[in-house]
């Protein structure tokens, strides 16, 4: 199968490969997929407790080129984002950016899942839920209106 240039670039020069301390209270870890399905993604974020901004992100992925590229891209996008904005990353954004063909859409879904799991893990460590991220969403919309 032919890969897009962007997928190949991420495969050849993956951004942010690495491992963070799972036990660190500022670190959130998401592991999704299963070896027998041919994909396992691990995404980690490090959050600045003062500002609530993601300062660093790392990944390791077992999977096809598209899975590697999706997770590599996700770490790039996560850095510098607030938790709220990180939760807004959609798999369709990844599909578009990497020009993934239909048979590889599941790789982007997996990456979105991994982001959610990492956020959840971080929030849990701080006694919060995912819903708490979006408590003020409607107020913003009202303000805009």
């Amino acid at each position, binding site marked *: 199968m032919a890969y897009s240039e962007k997928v*190949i670039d991420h*495969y050849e020069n993956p951004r942010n490969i690495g491992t963070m301390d799972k036990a660190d209270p500022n670190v959130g870890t998401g*592991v999704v997929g*299963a070896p027998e399905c041919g*994909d*396992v993604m*691990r995404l980690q974020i490090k959050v600045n407790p003062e500002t609530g901004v993601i300062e660093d992100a790392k990944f390791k992925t077992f999977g*096809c080129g598209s899975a590697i590229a999706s997770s590599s891209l996700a770490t790039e996008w996560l850095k510098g984002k607030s938790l709220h904005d990180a939760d807004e990353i959609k798999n369709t954004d990844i599909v578009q950016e990497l020009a993934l063909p239909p048979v590889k859409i599941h790789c982007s879904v997996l990456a979105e899942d991994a982001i959610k799991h990492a956020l959840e893990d971080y929030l849990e460590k701080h006694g919060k839920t995912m819903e708490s991220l979006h408590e003020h969403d409607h107020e913003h919309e009202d303000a805009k209106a």
Partner: protein
Amino acid sequence: MSLKLPIYLDHNATTPMDPRVLDAMLPYFTEKFGNSASRNHQYGWDAEEGVDYAREQVGNLIGCTSKEIVWTSGSTESNNLAIKGVADMYGKKGNHIITAVHEHKATLDPVKRLQKQGFDVTWLEPNSDGIITAEAVEGALRDDTILVTIMWANNELGTINEIPEIGKMLKEKHSEKDKPILHTDATQWVGKMPTDVERDGVDLLSASAHKMYGPKGVGFLYVRRRRPRVRLTPIIDGGGHERGMRSGTLNVTGIVGMGKACEIAGQEMDSEQGRLLKMRTRLEEGITSKLEMAVINGHPTKRLPGTTNISFPYVEGESLMMAIKEIAVSSGSACTSASLEPSYVLKALGLGDEIAHSSIRFGMGRFTTDEEIDYTIEKVVKNVQHLLDMSPLWEMVQEGIDLDSIEWGAH
């Protein structure tokens, strides 16, 4: 010298034609274009002479007479003719067929069809070394067994089944009249390894030209004529060619090419075996000495000299294929085929999914060079290392975590 890329290491899928084979074929496209069944003129005689000579060339390679060769379009057809032909002809005598789970589809599917029609089939499973032994076949024999069909060498692994031992065992246990017929799909074997249907007790043997530096679309079925005489119901009816077993105007050019390919194979087999075995060893040692997790699948020594199937656990097959796209190989990876299933052949060895998911078959051939092997080693090692650095599974294994103990999410 610069390498020509991509490097072809997929000789179990098909081989390039030997230029000497092409030279032998060329006159039969133009001057000697006749129909070998035309009995009344020179054109027909010339074509028939070419076909008859090819029968002798095949006979010399596998130890049979020219009357025992039925030309076909390749091994798929040969297997179909052998399996269905025996079932139909001997179905009154018995209802039981023995084969193995990791045969080529060209055997599995005809047998499955017979099973649907009411035949009783024993599907032998290999040990983890991939080999079907005479003992396993003996254990499955019944009074109503009419056919044993076991491939000689496996196309994915290169492993060699105990065909001569099976042939001997069948002869020892039965009178000539009651003996189940032994068919072997020798597509990957003939032309590479010494074959003697008399000595090895084979009754039916399938082979294909394009696996032995001949043209595509031509092959043969060897059909034993004496002790015992094997009879087959044809699957293609028509003009009565090939003693009624396979009608249709003969593919004269292809047949001439197959004959030449057999002649060359016979002459060069000894030296080629040695050369390929050295190359295989070089490749296997080059890879496994630098990648401790790499596993060679199938029996360590009972394998074709030019074939090796290596698994790279903890890295995923498709990403590896993408990384080594300068090397034309075949992969047992799930993602490269339409289905999500890893190779049924590797699963038959009892390998876990993560091993079966990332295996590569390297098939070396007549024109492969040491330089190409060295390039392949370097490319594979570098990219597997790169993928291991990215693999969360490899990291867990390094930390001493048993991957089977983890509850993975469904997905």
